[in-house]
């Protein structure tokens, strides 16, 4: 094309040679040399657009990741240079391609798309350019455009295997399975397959089989599968056989499918899906109401599997789900005895799955009480005089303590649980699990600080165990001891980073959520928001991580995993890690909207001092960084410091509700089946005064959980807000026609009935708010809230705390009375403990811990 190049692009031979070298140096990552070559050309031809573009790209690629202080201006320089290059040469594919690559690295998909499109206009057949475009189009889910680009690519490179196969995938992603299979057939007749490795051939065939199933072509798929196994292209282990079972089932060949599930179980007898598939193919509907007959059939099958696979717990555990009454009692006892004999710490977590059935929970309690009773008397558990291992009683105490304090119990017995654990500890004082259980029981009773001290004892027994370390840190966070938690976590994080930085870099979701919650609890909304936003950033990174795989997987031919990745990323933010953090952050944003004064920094003198210290430290660090950047190149060039270390900039946002909406949008799309999504959406839209969206949120919530207490409150709130607001007629008309179907009763009746019959803590809390919303009667609200402390209501510290917070805003004079009643109901709840007592308690715990360390140390020496 050189002969047709416009004049301003032409270079004399010497520079032209340098230019080609520059291209190679960029590809070989010899960035320094590249920049030097570019500078030599630019000295003579400062307006040469393509050289400017390549220099910008080379400079940009040479920057460190994460960006350091000294690299910031260089990045800007590269960005500006890339733009200048376009101005100098607007018809060059290189200048546009480079602009696109830089936009892509900023994750500015729109600009990158436009730039790549411009570049392709200049040079439609440029292979690297098409490849980059396909990745971007796929990443931004522009499947038809990606498909067109794939097509074009195949025309240019028909002899390459992956051009064909990638086109198959492009058709699949675009939703055209028939075309995908057709391209695959063309590929087989056009290209000989030699060259592909064994694993590659296997990946290809396995994925084609998946497409056959998706396309409903089970018979053809089955034949291909058989052929593939016969020829040794695919191994019958794992997915291949599972696909076979599915195809057989789809073809109505239940008997063969059953046999195939049997084969799968022989490969892996701990896979629950295989058992469920087997039982289903046996014609026993698992989801339907079970008849006694099918129940006993299932149990027979499971019992024979238990014999065939003696090392697998699955058939014995599944039997607990499907049995009832005396049969359940018999099976559960055998299962529990076996677990206690082996000292399996997870036995409770395993068995408690059946507790959703209150009858089964009761039976399990009776079984374990009976075991404890017998073992305490040294009696044998069976009639054959066999002796139980001495640790069995200890594990029985452990189980029973968790059982008695389990939140589903109407009246959890915390004192007895602790008593049992103390007995176990007397027997074996060095087992961390016993202290962990104590911590859990205390946590359930609301005694968060005591719980943290017990968890710390568990940690002290095995300081090398990261699991115990993390648990202890988590319990400190829950008790509000943020600093202590961070100090502990530092034991296992990188030494040259703060533990928070390291855990953030490593995308440690639990930590970000827990520390955010801890900050929120102590009223530091700025830091809480910072942690929740860090969570949102982690999920953004999870999304961005897929980018390289659009190209990589086509090369590695791992199509099945790739298509799952695409589907997974599309619903990524339905993950509870995102969900919980986003909901919490949204609540903070609505708080800021309601009362912007909470963003004003109101600190106690100690906090003020601490803040000043931190600010000084940050300032120093920045000054040092700047200095280092100015004096040296590579060494001592620190990463760009956090511009908002305290989160205050986040909190002081001018647009809290828009920030909330940004976090909420993915939930609307991906967690639409959760009532919380719509409850949270309502709080956003009502504040934005977008009444129809608020109405839609209420309607969606109602279709999911019509009796949700918070929803009942929101309906009342909506009615009141819209009745007093000035609305356009059209909006009013919609509300007037829709609202009656939301309000099943009049507001007065609703609040009355909620107030009267409410039993669950959540119902009581929102009934109180509803009452106040309707009639503004503080007295009635207080009386409703007091019910949370009644004997007949399961004690719930979360709603008690929320009630106190509510009263502090609306009716501060009632706080004391209500708090007093809650305290009488939950005597060990840390939040209701007066601060004077807190200090004494804390000293006691601290003393206990010191004594504990001393004792353990002595024992260790023995």
């Amino acid at each position, binding site marked *: 094309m050189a002969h047709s190049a416009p004049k301003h692009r032409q270079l004399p031979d010497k520079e032209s040679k340098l230019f080609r070298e520059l291209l190679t140096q960029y590809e070989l990552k010899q960035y320094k040399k590249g920049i030097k070559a570019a500078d030599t050309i630019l000295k003579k031809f400062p307006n040469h657009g393509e050289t400017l573009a390549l220099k910008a790209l080379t400079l940009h690629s040479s920057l460190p990741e994460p960006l350091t202080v000294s690299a910031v201006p260089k990045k800007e320089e590269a960005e500006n240079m890339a733009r200048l290059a376009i101005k100098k040469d607007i018809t060059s594919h290189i200048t546009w391609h480079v602009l696109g690559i830089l936009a892509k690295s900023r994750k500015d998909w729109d600009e990158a798309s436009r730039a790549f499109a411009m570049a392709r206009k200049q040079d439609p057949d440029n292979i690297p350019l098409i490849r980059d475009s396909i990745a971007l189009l796929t990443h931004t889910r522009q499947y038809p455009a990606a498909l067109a680009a794939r097509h074009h690519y195949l025309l240019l490179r028909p002899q390459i295997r992956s051009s064909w196969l990638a086109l198959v995938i492009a058709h699949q992603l675009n939703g055209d399975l028939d075309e995908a299979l057709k391209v695959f057939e063309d590929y087989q007749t056009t290209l000989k397959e030699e060259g592909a490795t*064994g*694993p590659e051939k*296997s*990946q290809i065939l396995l994925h084609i089989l998946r497409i056959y199933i998706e396309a409903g072509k089970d018979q053809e798929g089955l034949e291909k599968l058989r052929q593939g196994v016969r020829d040794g292209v695919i*191994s*019958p*282990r*794992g*997915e291949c056989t599972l696909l076979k079972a599915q195809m057989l089932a789809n073809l109505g060949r239940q008997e063969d499918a059953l046999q195939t599930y049997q084969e799968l179980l022989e*490969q*892996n007898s*701990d*896979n*629950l*899906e295989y058992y469920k598939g087997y039982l289903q193919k046996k014609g026993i509907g698992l989801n339907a109401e079970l008849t006694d007959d099918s129940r006993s059939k299932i149990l027979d099958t499971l019992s024979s599997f238990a014999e065939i696979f003696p*090392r697998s*717990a*699955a058939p014995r555990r599944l039997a607990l789900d499907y049995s009832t009454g005396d049969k359940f009692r018999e099976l559960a006892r055998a299962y529990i005895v076996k677990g206690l004999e*082996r*000292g*399996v*710490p*997870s036995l409770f*977590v*395993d068995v408690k*799955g059946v507790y959703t059935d209150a009858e089964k929970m009761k039976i399990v309690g009776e079984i374990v009480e009976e075991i404890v009773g017998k073992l305490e008397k040294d009696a044998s558990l069976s009639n054959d005089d066999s002796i139980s291992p001495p640790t069995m009683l200890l594990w029985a105490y452990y189980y029973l303590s968790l059982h008695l304090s389990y939140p589903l119990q109407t009246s959890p017995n915390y004192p007895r649980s602790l008593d049992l654990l103390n007995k176990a500890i007397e027997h074996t004082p060095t087992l961390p*699990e016993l202290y*962990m259980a104590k911590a859990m029981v205390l946590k359930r009773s609301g005694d968060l600080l005591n719980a943290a001290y017990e968890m710390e004892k568990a940690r002290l027994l095995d300081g090398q*165990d*990261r*699991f*115990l370390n*993390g648990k202890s840190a988590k319990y400190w966070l829950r008790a509000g001891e943020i600093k202590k938690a961070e100090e502990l976590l530092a034991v*296992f994080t*990188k*030494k040259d980073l703060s533990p928070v930085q390291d*855990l953030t*870099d*490593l*995308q*440690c*979701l*639990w930590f970000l959520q827990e520390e955010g919650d801890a900050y929120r609890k102590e009223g530091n909304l700025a830091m809480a928001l910072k942690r929740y936003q860090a969570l949102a950033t982690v999920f953004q*990174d*999870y999304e961005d*991580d*897929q980018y390289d*795989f659009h190209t*990589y*997987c086509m090369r*590695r031919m*791992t199509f*099945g*995993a*790739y298509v*799952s*990745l695409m589907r*997974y990323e599309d619903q990524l933010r339905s*993950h509870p*890690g995102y969900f919980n953090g986003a909901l919490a952050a949204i609540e903070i944003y609505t708080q800021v909207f309601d009362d912007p004064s909470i963003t004003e920094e109101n600190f106690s003198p100690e906090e003020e001092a601490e803040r000043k210290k931190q600010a000084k430290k940050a300032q120093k660090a920045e000054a040092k960084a700047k200095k280092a950047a100015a004096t040296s190149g590579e060494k001592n060039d620190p990463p760009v410091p956090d511009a908002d270390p305290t989160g205050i900039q986040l909190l002081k946002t001018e647009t809290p509700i828009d920030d909330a909406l940004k976090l909420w949008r993915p939930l609307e799309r991906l967690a639409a089946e959760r009532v919380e999504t719509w409850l949270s959406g309502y709080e956003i839209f009502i504040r934005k005064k977008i009444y129809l969206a608020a109405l839609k949120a209420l309607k969606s919530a109602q279709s999911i959980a019509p009796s949700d207490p918070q929803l009942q409150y929101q309906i009342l709130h909506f009615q009141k807000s819209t009745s007093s607001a000035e609305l356009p007629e059209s909006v009013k008309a919609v509300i007037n026609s829709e609202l009656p179907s939301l309000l099943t009763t009049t507001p007065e009746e609703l609040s009355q009935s909620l107030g009267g019959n409410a039993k669950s803590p959540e119902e009581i809390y929102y009934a109180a708010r509803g009452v106040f919303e309707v009639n503004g009667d503080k007295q009635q609200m207080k009386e409703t809230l007091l019910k949370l402390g009644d004997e007949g209501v399961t004690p719930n510290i979360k709603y008690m705390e929320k009630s106190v917070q509510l009263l502090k805003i609306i009716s501060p004079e009632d706080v004391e009375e209500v708090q007093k009643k809650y305290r009488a109901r939950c005597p060990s709840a840390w939040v209701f403990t007066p601060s004077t007592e807190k200090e004494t308690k804390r000293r006691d715990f601290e003393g206990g811990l010191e004594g504990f360390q001393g004792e353990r140390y002595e024992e260790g020496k023995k």
Partner: protein
Amino acid sequence: MDIRQATIDDLIGMQNANLLNLPENYTFKYYLYHALTWPELSYVAVDPRGRIVGYILAKMEDEPSPNTEPSGHVTSISVLRPYRRLGLANKLMKQSQEAMVAHYKASHITLHVRKSNRAAISLYRDTLGFEVHAMEKGYYADGEDAYGMRYLFNKKSEVESTA
């Protein structure tokens, strides 16, 4: 506990379990790299609530030199503390090993372990049949040495009969 091949949906849970349990951690992309290169080799143990309580993250040696047989490698394996004594590590390892043989014709499997981690060494050697075949000086970021351990698949029947 349910034991099954890991899918893309499991990777966040695996990352979480790894961060809870072990000092050697990786960002999400590294898990993606495993799952999108050797999708059959990683396994998870899942509790009744759907929480991942154990995992094996495994791969093949990526660029085997000619004349060497395909070799599997365990990048990371762990079981959350409360879920020990169920034999989960053993089951996860077995599933992964069988997949290595079935899909990649692996002849052996290797892993690294901290020289000081006696509990892990004993698990690999006494329960899983590995043996130390090399010492790698300063393998870990903090400078600690690693033992390279290896298990040959053709010896499998022998180990199984003694287990």
